[in-house]
């Protein structure tokens, strides 16, 4: 017993006990209060996932139609086109004829893609 009291780790044990008590006593008091005075009333609506007031509908694992992929590709093409067109328009008067021809070929390729997509009926949403 005397060894135990002389141990340098005794103070650590005491500190740990104090820390545990400091954390657990308020938690215990809160739990006791809840037991005595505030009955838990869970319910279907109360435990619902969403908190925005609206009911969630359907499943979260929605599958998108594969057609959406083509729409996204076409959008991306014209998105990139806009990025190129803007500096082209700004520096139009300073450009050599070669650059103009190159840009026209680029636009032609995009328009060709659009015509192809149109003919395939991609733009018609079913």
């Amino acid at each position: 017993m005397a060894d135990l009291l002389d141990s340098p780790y005794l103070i650590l044990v005491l500190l740990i006990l104090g820390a545990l008590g400091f954390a657990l006593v308020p938690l215990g008091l809160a739990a006791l209060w809840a037991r005595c005075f505030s009955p838990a009333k869970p319910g279907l609506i109360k435990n619902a996932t969403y908190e925005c007031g609206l009911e969630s509908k359907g499943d979260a694992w929605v599958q998108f139609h594969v057609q959406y992929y083509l729409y996204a590709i076409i959008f991306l093409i014209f998105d990139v086109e806009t990025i190129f067109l803007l500096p082209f328009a700004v520096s139009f008067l300073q450009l050599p004829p070669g650059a103009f021809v190159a840009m026209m070929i680029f636009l032609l390729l995009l328009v060709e893609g659009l015509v192809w997509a149109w003919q395939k009926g991609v733009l018609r949403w079913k």
Partner: protein
Amino acid sequence: MDEGLRSELQKQGIFTTTLEEIYNWGRKNSVWPLGFGLACCAIEMIAASMSRWDLARFGAEVFRPSPRQADLMIVAGTVTKKMAPQVVRLYNQMPEPKYVIAMGACAISGGPFKQGYNVLKGIDRYIPVDVHIPGCPPRPEALLHAFITLQRKITEQQLTGPNRPRHLRRDAPSEFPIPEYGAHDLVPPSHPGLWRPPGLVR
């Protein structure tokens, strides 16, 4: 405890309290409202929470964006029949104890839009309202007054006994039925156990 003895002790610098009092004192000074507005009254509610009227003086400046963290629902504005189920659902999702202030003529009775086919004639048809404030819109001072009234109500709530409030009774419901869209009106048009309009006594 005897009131006379209590004030006598207070003069000597000894303050006494009860568990109930200190619990209610803590609750009434940290009411967290749910941050949502339905119409123009919401602007007055926002003004009341800002520095000029400063709702923070009463411990209610913490507007929560989630019903799970809110104690007080300030129904600020016209409740349309489209919106009513959402309001009731949000109320249901708030934890107990929860309070409701119906702010403005619309929230208490439909107000100037009462004749509208799409306007709910008072949110107290579906959820229990603690304080009604008239006005179109009420001034922020009126909201402060309603808030102080609510604080007074919280102070007087008893922890035990037959007169204890709804949230302390195990059998009292926490959720209220949510109305559904019917062919012509919300179904049911009001919560029958909750809404008892005063009848004419001749």
